[in-house]
């Protein structure tokens, strides 16, 4: 825009801005960086009064300790199992509901959408006590399906809202054309709309994955006696007390736990930026 200005002056003027940007990036990344480097540092370097920003030597010992810790593989499997089944269940149920909301006209539609919006803001932190008591009464304590159901409900409203937007964005004419060509309504949806919906399904399932993967409260209070049914967040929080002084192993455990979420987000980042771009176009 202001190409007429001398570039040096411009660079000087931009200095505070660039400094602020650098500071922001530093504050954002430092805790993550420190987690990862601590996990790779030899123990004597961790317990030193002269910490260095870069590890002098790299070691995988802490990761070995974390992986060899009691039940790590089991809790990993539990977390994956609960997360994936909750997300798939939410997708399946939400797809039907979102289709009904986006493509059909029926009495009570507005009320249903309102209920979904309210459910999205459900005070889950305040429902621990009744959910605990209900699970206890129905013999569902200490069981992974209980967690699956709850994570399904936590992710469902969000999934419905987002999928509704994606379905509404696909022109109904496409499906109609397929129906004219002899498809059933369901067939038209499956062959025409569903492939177009894939990015939406991807985005929502990744967000659902993150939510369920990270959930701590219910996993902590509903899985009490049956230690074999614990999930990774709970394992990590108790890891600190078991390995209290071994911060290298604790950070390795944190890294291992955070890794899937970070990878998922790096994959998702394109969608996030694409979302931002479309927001920019919309204005």
């Amino acid at each position: 825009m202001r190409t007429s200005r001398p570039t040096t002056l411009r660079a000087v003027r931009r200095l505070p801005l660039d400094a602020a940007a650098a500071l922001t990036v530093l504050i954002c990344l430092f805790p993550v960086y420190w987690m990862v480097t601590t996990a790779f540092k030899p123990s004597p370097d961790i317990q030193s009064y002269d910490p260095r920003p870069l590890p002098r030597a790299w070691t995988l010992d802490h990761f070995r300790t974390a992986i060899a810790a009691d039940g790590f593989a089991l809790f990993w499997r539990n977390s994956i199992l609960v997360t994936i089944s909750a997300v798939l269940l939410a997708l399946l149920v939400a797809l039907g509901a979102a289709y009904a909301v986006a493509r059909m006209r029926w009495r009570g539609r507005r009320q249903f959408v309102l209920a979904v919006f309210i459910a999205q803001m459900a005070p889950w932190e305040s429902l621990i006590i009744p959910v605990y008591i209900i699970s206890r009464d129905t013999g569902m304590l200490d069981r992974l399906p209980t967690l699956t159901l709850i994570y399904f409900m936590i992710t469902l409203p969000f999934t419905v809202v987002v999928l509704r937007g994606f379905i509404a964005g696909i022109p109904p004419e496409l499906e109609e054309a397929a129906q004219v060509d002899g498809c059933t309504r369901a067939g038209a949806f499956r062959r025409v709309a569903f492939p177009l919906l894939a990015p939406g399904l991807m985005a929502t399932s990744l967000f659902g994955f993150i939510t369920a993967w990270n959930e701590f409260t219910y996993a902590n209070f509903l899985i009490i006696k049956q230690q074999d049914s614990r999930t990774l967040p709970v394992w990590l929080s108790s890891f600190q007390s078991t390995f209290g002084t071994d911060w290298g192993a604790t950070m390795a455990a944190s890294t291992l736990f955070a890794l899937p979420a970070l990878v998922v987000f790096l994959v998702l980042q394109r969608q996030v930026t694409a979302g931002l771009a479309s927001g920019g176009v919309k204005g």
Partner: protein
Amino acid sequence: MSTVRDRSVPRTGRRQAPPAPGRAVRRGGTGRGALWPYLLIAPAVLGMLYLLVYPLARAVLISFQDFRLRQLILGDAEFVGLRNYRTLLGDPQFWEVVRRTFVFMAVNVVAIMVLSTLVALMTERLDRVARTVVLSSLVLVWAVPVVAATTVFRWLFHSEFGIVNETLTGFGLDSYESYPWLAHGGTAFAIIVVLIVWQSVPFAAITLYSALVTVPAELHESARIDGAGGVRVFRSVTFPLIRPIFMLVLSLEVIWTFKAFVQIWVMTRGGPGEATTILPVYAVQTALAGQRYDLGSAASMLTVLLMSGVLVLYFRQLFRQEGEQL
């Protein structure tokens, strides 16, 4: 499947015109096809009823009962009317928790909104490469799981080997040598605030940034030509335009910090003493540690009541934003 086909035939003709929401299209009427939408939403409705409405109703019920360990095992809870609420509201300790919750929320929300607005304004002014780097780091922070972040912050502020103490001592502030951050009420509170702000700024900043880029640049230009300074331009031009999104983010942050539970539970369990006990922590402690499920439920219900005030504001804003889509 046959139902689908029966239904699809008349539908095709009807859908020639683009669907106008709001305008009442001919309803399904009495035909069998009219059942389809209800079948499609049935699982979602059943889920909401059993997993949300029922627990909420149960919580209300328990808050009016005498419900302790004995009643949990034998299931013979008796109604005691408003006794639990009277007990809570007459307890100065409970009021202390309420006060602390509001202070906690206010400090967090103000810090989050100020910082994220600054970050959003900054990001908008950066060139393309720098902007990508900043946005990527924000997304990365967003992705760090709460329990992992909390664990990392415990390590950063570790009294003996934590990098924060080492750095502060390195700057010559010797009083921070082996300073036990989590052993003092004030500093434990501060660390949890820092943690929550660190985790919350990315969402708020990215959302505000995406609102900022929709503000036409010509408006800034003309305000500048009219002689307005940077602050003035923000106050009278930019802010009014991003105000709806700003209010939406603000109410979301209020709700989210009100419910901040995991960070506190993993970091301090509400301690030291009671220094970091806010309402959700108090409710869980009373119910599951003290086995007073009745009092805990009552505290939860009061929390929901307090929060629903903010929720109403949020929904008004939300429906103003996308009311036309409903």
